[in-house]
């Protein structure tokens, strides 16, 4: 006979942290690490940058936890912080002049399967994503990969809904063109 595991809610963990139980924050970090990490890695395309942005977002989230007005929606709130961190990190990387290069490890995580197992298609997708302008990549990932509503995206990004729709449309068009070219090669 199995035992049902009752998971502590985000709101409970947030309340415990605010009451002084710092260790409770580890539960929130573990809960959101991979999901937010996926966005950071796709957005930044570099393991080191993605982990830096993720770590920074978690620490900023902790420092500002009292401003999480709806602890039940801690994940969505933290998402907003991460989107901002990725913008800052991405801009800094661009200033450094780093070419956007896909990092096998970053996209597979640790531990990761052999790079040899990756297919040409996977590689083509990540290269195509890397060629999008950051604002197009951001909008595409939030809409299609993270499955957010446009209103939520507008709150997270500060952009208007119509602008976001346009960015998603352009991102889709550009991905199609880039991937068609890749198929011909």
């Amino acid at each position, binding site marked *: 006979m199995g035992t049902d595991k009752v998971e502590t809610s985000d709101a409970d963990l947030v309340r415990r942290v*605010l009451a002084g139980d710092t260790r409770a924050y580890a539960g929130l970090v573990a809960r959101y690490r991979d999901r937010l990490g996926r966005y950071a890695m796709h957005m930044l395309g570099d393991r080191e940058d993605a982990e830096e942005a993720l770590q920074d977002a978690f620490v900023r989230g902790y420092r500002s936890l009292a401003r999480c007005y709806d602890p039940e929606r801690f994940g969505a709130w933290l998402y907003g912080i991460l989107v901002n961190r990725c913008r800052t990190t991405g801009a800094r990387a661009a200033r450094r002049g780093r070419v956007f290069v896909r990092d096998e490890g970053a996209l597979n*995580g640790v531990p990761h399967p052999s790079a040899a197992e990756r297919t040409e298609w996977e590689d083509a997708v990540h290269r195509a994503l890397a060629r999008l302008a950051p604002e197009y990549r951001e909008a595409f990932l939030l809409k299609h990969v993270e499955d957010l509503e446009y209103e939520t995206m507008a709150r997270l990004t500060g952009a208007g809904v119509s602008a976001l729709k346009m960015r998603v449309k352009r991102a889709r068009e550009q991905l199609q063109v880039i991937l068609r070219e890749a198929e011909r090669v």
Partner: protein
Amino acid sequence: MSEHDEDVIERVVDELRRPVQVDPAVDTRVMEEIARLPVRRGHGGGPAAGAAWRWLTRPRSISLSPLGGLGIAAVLAALVLALSGRRPGSPSTPPAERAMREFEFVVVEPHAARVSLVGDFNDWDAARTPMRRMQGGSVWTAVLPLRPGRYRYAFLVDGTRWLADPTAPAARDDEFGAPSSVVTVGSS
């Protein structure tokens, strides 16, 4: 858009939605960094008060409408005054401390029982910087030494109302969901 094009996007999305595992060492690094931060002191009333504080300080609660009741009309003005002549330290003070400048934050709130200054400089902790009521009145002040930099801040009235400073620039890049203001401290 052709069926083939739609199919391409679907396959792209399927690829990008595959779960990603981040190095769990990130957890350790986050918790280590948090452990180095000042101890959280809460909002002065334990978890229940904290929950009430968060509920009451949602963005909608700061609307300058009659709904807010007491004190709404009382927000007459707020000023941030750089007291350039009030620099702490002597010639023997370390350079980092000499670089600090004292700022006086001022808000007019005649009906408030207590007002706190919260911002990047105190981790938005309402317990750390209570404001002082000027004699006889409706003016609340707090003086804070700040190092050069850019800080976001707001006023918390009676632990329930969150006010941006109407006389200071709004923090447009605020990522936490509530209005706040910005003060920039120069290095000279």
